[in-house]
């Protein structure tokens, strides 16, 4: 069963939350079957005559070609007297806006420091050099598109390579964890840059075709590649996205153009459950299409962030979605019926996080919630949950949501008003510190780790984030996930006390350094015996 929560729980490995929700194919809805003509005919007819002719036709040929126009998408628009682009025109327009973005990642995996070079697609979206990329760059990778497990990478060295030979350096501006998109800013532009233009005047449907483009690798001369795709399904879950025929992971980050040369979306991999993007290694969908309407706000916010010259951040900014503090499941029609709950959908609260807004407002496990601010919670089965969670996360901290709670038997309802708090920090946003002597990275203890290890809420310490196996910390037996609570006689409650403890130890250079750690419900001692002479010589 899906455990839905509005806060991820961080176990050592990503949680298995049961079978993924099935998507509801929109094909079932009659209004999506409009234009039978288009669907009934093959998308491309081999018409050598057509391809050989230039776009502007003498009028006498226009009539028979109008018939042809009905059959070939793109040109079909011509009958509405709108200007379309030929593929060569598109190619010429699009190619200068695309770049291969190379970057470096440094993270710890398998007990070793990994330094990997990776690349992704980027598209220039403004004349002053804002670049839209996939958020995948944040996750540990062993080569492009190949996710690895490991600690949160440090990102450096962003460089853009265009097909016409231009090269630019860039810095990170910001990321959106729900959409898994990122923004870069070119820092060495010497004038306005070719960029794409967006439009939200666009009605997608099954069969809608896009033009897209990516670049070949350096070995192939960074040649632009024409990559047509089309919508083969409209998905509501995990998010409102388009399933794309013709997409591959190589195309993640590639824009989706309409026939008139405007970008209407981007190819992305989105987190499979809302909020999951706040993990270091979330479960992601395959390559799907995100409509511009969905990331328009992200670009606007990012643009102002770049304009205010907010320094490039190495880690993404805090999550600004509101937080309730409950875990819940779909009540389901059979149970709802059995309990006499009114029809229309409901969720069952399974857990209330102590100290959260939900807890303060008086929600309790096994509460049945049927409406928010008067609107029915239309959750009848688990696959409906993502929509609901998304609606909650769209609220900002400080907003008040009034839940209607129904008692069993449908006899009575009451209203519970919950004022959303700031989303607690997750592992992804946790502050990290590195200790070179012990080749150890630690991070602050965040709520998701507390919940994942089922720790007492009063637990303090720092979490081992990454450790090289043959370093002094690794040889002592430390491994990721362990919570360091004491080093020698110094208590470690947070990152500052951790650094202070190690500073003292480094000063005193004892033969043995005793670590007291907790992991889940067990505690244990580990002893490191660093070679201080070797360390001080470095």
């Amino acid at each position, binding site marked *: 069963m899906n455990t839905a929560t509005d806060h991820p729980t961080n176990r050592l490995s990503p949680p298995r939350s049961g079978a993924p929700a099935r998507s509801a194919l929109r094909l079932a809805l009659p209004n999506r079957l409009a234009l039978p003509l288009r669907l009934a005919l093959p998308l491309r007819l081999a018409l050598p005559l057509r391809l050989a002719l230039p776009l502007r036709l003498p009028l006498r040929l226009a009539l028979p070609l109008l018939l042809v126009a009905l059959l070939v998408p793109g040109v079909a628009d011509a009958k509405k007297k709108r200007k379309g682009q030929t593929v060569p025109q598109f190619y010429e327009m699009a190619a200068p806006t695309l770049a291969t973005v190379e970057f470096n990642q440094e993270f710890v995996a398998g007990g070793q420091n990994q330094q990997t070079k990776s690349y992704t697609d980027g598209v220039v979206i403004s004349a002053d050099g804002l670049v839209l990329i996939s958020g995948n760059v944040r996750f540990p990778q062993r080569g492009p598109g190949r996710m690895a497990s490991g600690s949160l990478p440090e990102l450096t060295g962003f460089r853009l390579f265009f097909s016409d030979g231009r090269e630019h350096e860039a810095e990170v501006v910001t990321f959106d964890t729900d959409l898994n998109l990122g923004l870069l800013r070119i820092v060495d532009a010497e004038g306005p840059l070719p960029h794409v233009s967006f439009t939200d005047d666009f009605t997608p449907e099954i069969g809608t075709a896009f033009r897209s483009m990516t670049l070949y690798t350096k070995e192939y001369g960074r040649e632009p590649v024409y990559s047509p795709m089309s919508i083969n399904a409209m998905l509501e879950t995990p998010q409102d996205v388009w399933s794309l025929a013709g997409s591959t992971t190589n195309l993640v980050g590639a824009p989706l153009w309409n026939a008139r040369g405007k970008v209407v979306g981007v190819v992305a991999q989105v987190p499979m459950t809302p909020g999951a993007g706040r993990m270091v290694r979330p479960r992601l969908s395959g390559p799907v299409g995100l409509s511009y309407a969905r990331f328009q706000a992200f670009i606007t916010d990012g643009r102002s962030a770049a304009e205010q010259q907010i320094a490039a951040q190495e880690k993404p900014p805090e999550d600004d979605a509101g937080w309730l503090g409950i875990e819940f499941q779909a009540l389901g029609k059979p149970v709802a019926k059995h309990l006499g709950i009114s029809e229309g959908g409901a969720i069952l609260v399974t857990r209330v996080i102590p100290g959260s807004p939900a807890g303060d407002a008086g929600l309790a496990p096994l509460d049945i919630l049927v409406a928010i601010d008067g609107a029915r919670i239309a959750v009848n*089965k688990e696959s409906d949950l993502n929509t609901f969670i998304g609606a909650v996360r769209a609220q900002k901290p400080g907003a008040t949501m009034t839940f209607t709670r129904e008692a069993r038997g449908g006899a009575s309802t009451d209203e519970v008003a919950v004022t959303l708090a700031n989303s607690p920090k997750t592992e992804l946003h946790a502050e990290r510190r590195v200790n070179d002597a012990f080749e150890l990275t630690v991070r602050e203890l965040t709520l998701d780790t507390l919940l994942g290890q089922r720790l007492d809420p009063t637990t303090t310490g720092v979490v081992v984030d990454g450790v090289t196996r043959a370093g002094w910390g690794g040889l002592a037996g430390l491994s990721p996930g362990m919570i360091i609570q004491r080093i020698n006689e110094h208590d470690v409650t947070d990152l500052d006390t951790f650094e202070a403890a190690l500073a003292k130890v480094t000063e005193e250079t004892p033969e043995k350094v005793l670590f007291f750690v907790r992991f889940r419900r067990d505690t244990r*001692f580990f002893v490191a015996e660093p070679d201080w002479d070797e360390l001080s010589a470095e």
Partner: protein
Amino acid sequence: MLAPQDPHRKQALNARAHARLLDPSPWRRHAPAMTITPSRLGVHLVAVVLLAGVAFALTPLPTHAADLQTSILRVQRNAHTALVNIQPVTESYTRGEKRKRASVGSGFLIDTQGHIVTNYHVAGRASRVMVTLHNKERVEAELIGEDPLTDLAVIKIPAELVSDYGMKPVRFGDSDALEVGEFVMALGSPLALARTMTFGVVSNKDRYLPEGMTLPTGERTGDFNTWIQTDAAINPGNSGGPLINLAGEVVGVNARGAMFADNIGFAIPAATAKAVAASLVKIGEVKRSYVGIQFQSLQDWEQLFGMTEARGALIASVERGGPAAAAGLLPGDVLLSYGGTPVTARFDEELPGVYQLIADTPIGTEVTLEVLRRENTSTMTITTVETGKLSGDEFEAEAWGFTVRGITDQMVFDRDLMSKDGVVVEGVRTGGPADRGNLSRGWVIDQINDTPVNDLAAFEAQYAAAGNAPALLRIVDQERLRLVLVTPGDEPTTDGGSR
């Protein structure tokens, strides 16, 4: 090999005795990666039967190959009637329904009443046990007692058959006196090939396998003994058979083989097997005390804990809610003596001895502890509780399509459950009513139709009372509460059963 009249023989014997005194107790860091041990992969319990090696210290050393051969044959002739091939039928509930499983293991006769020692993972919880004797006769045996913590069990055949079929029991030898390099034989049924003998030496006599091993059925095991490692061939099917020395004494019970390795097998020492078997014969179980402490070896860290010499057992972790927690013990305390007996565990191999000392305490005893905390020694008292059964009984709720298990105190610790109330879901039958209701394995049911279910008996009663009506189960899933509706005989719904 030396000839009996060889003038150098005496010298060699002395050299050997000298060597024994010098032999340092082998210490190593934590046992090598146990990923190779089948136990990690749940397959480890390969019962290997090692034929007995003869007790080395007590008998004259065979002086040449012919003598060695004679000794081996003598052992085989005396011991082979004690060996049995065991075919148990066990019931498994992990797939949400009661399923039977047939397997093959080995065992050996220890007395004339017909008691046979084998592994728990062979005959434990068996619903039916057939044995094949040395003369190939097949007999049904009765399960007398089982002890998952040491992975041992005792079954019994009728006493008349022992005499009728001329079976001679084998006796236990002194596994503590074993030396590395002694000849041993493994008897058993590797790959179900009954009445097989293999031959080798003791490769290591106190091999430490890490804590936290679990049996295929989920119980914790291996806390109380180190292992005899041997290169006498041990294969699946040897489980429960004897490891015999040249004196014809059982020095171990073959229980484990290392995967992806040749000639690395492990046997439970006779010292453990003898004591456990005696208790199983007498009362059908082994009663142990429990205090809720996890120790770790002190190594050479004594100064870090305020000592000048290395002694005592370092407390690594104190179980929440256990007797040690109640007594105020804390991680970092060093246990210096337990009930007056000094305790030391510098190396991992010494840890099982400490756990054994605690386990042997009569249940409910108030024990005086000498504890060192930050250079101050103090006296504390602790009252032990019963370890109790590692796992509760199982039950199949057939109409509902799932199986449950009663919860014991140990299960609350081992599985980190919230409390002892309720029953835990062992398995959910695919496609059954509970599966459609999205019930999951590992969840605890503490109410049915708003009636509390405190234990397995209450669950069974509620199940019977519910009949064919839909049943609302209240679930405790760690810190969460859930509701699951089980509708017996339900057709799959088309309105999107949540899956």
